[in-house]
């Protein structure tokens, strides 16, 4: 199933938030919120429906991106 760029971007922001160090959580949370806002605008869906609708796609994206490990660099 094709994935729009804004969803890939949202998954990327979620991945960074999930696997970053505790000290970077607040920074990556801000990045995630921006990505979610952008995805919300582009999809025309509410943020909560959007998050629920793409939750299962997150791991598919991880596999496709071959990202089993946490990012090593800040601001990946």
């Amino acid at each position, binding site marked *: *199933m*094709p*994935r*729009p760029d804004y*969803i890939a971007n949202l998954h990327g922001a*979620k991945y960074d*938030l*999930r696997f970053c160090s*505790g*000290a970077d*959580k*607040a920074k*990556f*949370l801000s990045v*995630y919120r921006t990505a979610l806002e952008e995805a919300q605008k582009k*999809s*025309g*869906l509410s943020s*909560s*429906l*959007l*998050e*629920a*609708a*793409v*939750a299962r*796609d*997150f*791991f598919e994206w991880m596999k496709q991106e071959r990202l089993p490990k946490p990012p090593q660099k800040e601001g990946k």
Partner: protein
Amino acid sequence: MPEIQQTFTDASVTQAEWEWVKDLIEDVKKDSQRDAFAQRLFQWDLAVKQFRKVELKRVLQDRPSEMDLDRHAVCLHALLAIGFSLRAQSKTFTPENLTALGVDHQQIAAYVIELEQSLREWHHGFSETELKQAQEKIFGAAA
């Protein structure tokens, strides 16, 4: 240099002594509270990390069973309850006190928000039909 003579009445000395002891006790109480907070925070952090590992295996990597989702919800709610309490408690400490523990208030708040995000993703009130329609709108448009 002229010597400054300080005169104390018996009453003022007694009061100062009591204030000094009271301050010492307050310091001990604050230290105890901070230690207890730190211990709870680190245990919670460890529990969140273990939860994420099991979540990855049981919920993300495969289609979760009903039992997996039930347990996931129970764990999330439990972690959130502690997280809310820690977030509120963290406000009672100075930034310096938190820095000494290697955390800050925003960091704890971000952990809590991330758990809330998981709750919205997996334990929402949307029907399967609503989800499918949303997925078609998102992924169908990219086709």
